[in-house]
């Protein structure tokens, strides 16, 4: 049996007294479009930082494509692409210079890096600004160039932290199509987003983290079935196909929408 593309064993990260990620056991199979969800401060970004080598775990293990991340960091990183939360851009380079640089950092020869750079800039509709420095790009353009940099070496696994935030609808559509094609060809995509509609449309499998603990994991259908069987969903929703938002609220937010009127801020207009 093939080992999953991403595996964590008892992954834990502490910041002083705060346990940001607590004993997480996660498994993502190869070729999955995997959505990683959680409320603000649940530990999503901390997890993705540990999975990509930006943050050391306090304890536990991470295996990527069968290799231990801490023992073989260079070999693992060669097969992984990342768009981190704070975009890892060298903002005094032009888009083309940056992509060639990233390509070379990932071991591409100059000719290949140059060829792929031209193709990516064209695909991302960034090719008409050859002399513009990244510092002068808009937020959406920065996201696009960060995504281009994450895929220039043809990674087998892609980690995306809020990749569509600030990207216009047309560009987002193009990017989603590109990502879906990547999974069709066998790449694994690990995505976090607050926009549940995007996750629902793109992802085949989802995990939900709450207060540092993994509280749900599986395919969307498995989660639907699990939640429908529980008592957290209202009668109205019980007979319909549950949306991801309903599943999410049922798992991490039971009671949040059940505030009595007298508990609300009465002085608000």
């Amino acid at each position, binding site marked *: 049996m093939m080992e999953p593309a991403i595996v964590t064993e008892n992954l834990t990260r502490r910041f002083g007294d705060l346990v940001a990620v607590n004993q997480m056991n996660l498994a993502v199979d190869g070729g999955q479009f995997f959505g990683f969800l959680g409320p603000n401060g649940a530990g999503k970004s901390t997890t993705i930082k540990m999975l*990509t*080598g*930006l*943050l*050391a775990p306090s304890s536990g293990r991470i295996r990527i494509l069968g290799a231990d991340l801490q023992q073989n*960091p*260079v*070999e*693992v*990183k*060669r097969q*992984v692409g*990342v768009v*981190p939360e*704070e*975009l*890892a*851009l*060298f*903002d*005094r*380079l032009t*888009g*083309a*210079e940056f992509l*060639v*640089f*990233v390509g*070379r*950092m*990932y*071991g591409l020869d*100059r*000719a290949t890096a*140059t*060829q792929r*750079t*031209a193709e990516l*800039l*064209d695909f991302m509709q960034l*090719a*008409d*600004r*050859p002399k*513009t*420095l990244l*510092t*002068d790009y808009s937020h959406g353009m920065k996201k696009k160039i960060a995504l281009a*940099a994450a895929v220039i070496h043809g990674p087998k696994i892609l980690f995306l932290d809020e990749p569509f935030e600030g990207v216009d609808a047309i560009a987002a559509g193009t990017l989603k199509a590109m990502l879906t094609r990547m999974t069709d060809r066998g790449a694994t995509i690990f995505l976090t987003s607050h926009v549940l509609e995007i996750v629902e449309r793109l992802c085949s499998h989802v995990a939900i983290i709450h207060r540092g603990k993994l509280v749900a994991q599986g395919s969307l259908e498995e989660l639907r079935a699990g939640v429908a069987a529980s008592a957290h969903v209202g009668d109205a929703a019980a007979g319909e196909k549950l949306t991801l938002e309903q599943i999410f609220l049922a798992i991490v937010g039971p009671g949040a929408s059940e505030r009595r009127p007298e508990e609300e801020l009465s*002085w608000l207009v």
Partner: protein
Amino acid sequence: MAGVSRLQGVGGQIGVIAGLRWRVFCNTLRSKGSRFDMVGLVLVGSIFGLFAAGAGLGLGILTYVFARRGDFEILLVPFWLVILFWQFFPVLLSGATTAFEYRQLLRFPLRFPAFFLLTIAYGLFDPSALASLLWLACVTVGLWLARPDLRIVALAVIGAFALMNLLLNRMAFAWLERLLSRRRAREVMVALFLLLMVSFQLFTAVGRRWGRQLMPYLRVAQPALQVLPPHLARKGIDDAARTGGRAAIPPLLWLGVYAVGFGLLLERRLRAQYHGEDLQEFAAAGAAVRPRAAPKVSAQKISAASARAWLPGPLAGLVEKEFRYLLRNTAAGLTLVLPLIIILAISLSWGSARQRPGPISRSPEMMFPGAVAYMFLIVAQYAHNAFAYEGAGIQLLFLAPVRFRDVLLAKNIFTGTLLVIETLLLWPLVSLTIRPPSLLTLAGTFAGVLFAALIHFLVGNWLSLKFPRRFEFGQFKRRASGMTILFGFVLQFALVGMVAAVLLIARGLGRMWLAPLVFAALSVATLQVYWVTLNSYDDLAVRERETLIGQLARPRT
């Protein structure tokens, strides 16, 4: 709406903001790093305070002595000193920050007078303003003691002069802020200020060579100076001392006109800000690319624009990136030109026919190593905080399949190349302005640079990983961490002292061939230690990654 019946008064609003500033200050002291920084700041502040107090005492005594003799021309010295220091020093220090944090307060219902007063209050707490006010107070006391009859006049004229300076400073900052909201303008401004700094050295050299010929032209410009504030302030006190207090009124009124003029210009700028002008938008509009039929990037063009691959793998990419960053960093680039200009000025001055021969001034055997040592002190600092300009890009260095050993090696190759280029430029510079140094001196100096550079890389790599500090592009104000400054200071002086001692001993023994041999031997030993140490940086970088990303990826607030 209960509790929000009316807006707070101006005093109340300023009080709330003062409380906020205090809270922010207390919260910044929570981390150990910030407390270290505060200790450093207190130490630097104390030194600056002592300097300001000493200068103030000197100016007070000077004023007293000359005022007793009835000579008030001397007042031009403190008045010019104050206006230059108050207006230029803060701009040099802040370089080109685009936003002052108090502007964020405009989202709240702040009254305009409160905003206006806050802007002025920020100007009063600037170190240069505090020092200038202290100096003016010392001059006033000197005048009071020397001529008690001039108390009121001195207070009025110097008070008006101080107010005019304060308003000029705030007005200049407010307008500069608008100008500097464009990145390119910021960089040009930094370049101009740096050139202004070195121009004083050049003026001195030019003055020594062609001073007599230039004097008649300078005399022609003298009457125009009489309408400038320092001359008006001097004239007010001087006239009152000669013919009575009323004679001070016209110069005083002119100082008032200056103050009102600057105040109105400041008010106009602040009104625009108060009514919602967003300089970020202004900057974005300036940076926005106009619609045009731009050529698309082709693979051939990218390839042609890139440097040739002369190093293996990612190392070449890293070195190339360092050079691209240098070319786009006006402040850092000019730092490299600075030593060349200053050494040119010194060489011109010392090499002039009127200069008497001294142990260093006419001897290239001393001048060349001295010039290289001076350049080294400036350029080698790059190695102490090697990740300063990476910003969020530091994450990529951790995400990419590259060893930190290679990252640091690339940075050392970059700094080493700069040192070689600068040394090679200094050689013809000294040769042309004085005389060519001997081959032995050349060999000794190059070997000394190699040894010193290797030691610097050895220590600098460790400092860069342990005590990183983010620097902003286009900003002249760059303060490394306290530990980096301390280590760098000790290292620089120990090395310069050691190299100088070897050179002097070899020269004293009349065996200059000893110096290159000693340095070559030391370099070989250091190179071995450097190479072994380089391999340990992978682990250190992994251990320090959170500090590095935390310090470098997020802009400082």
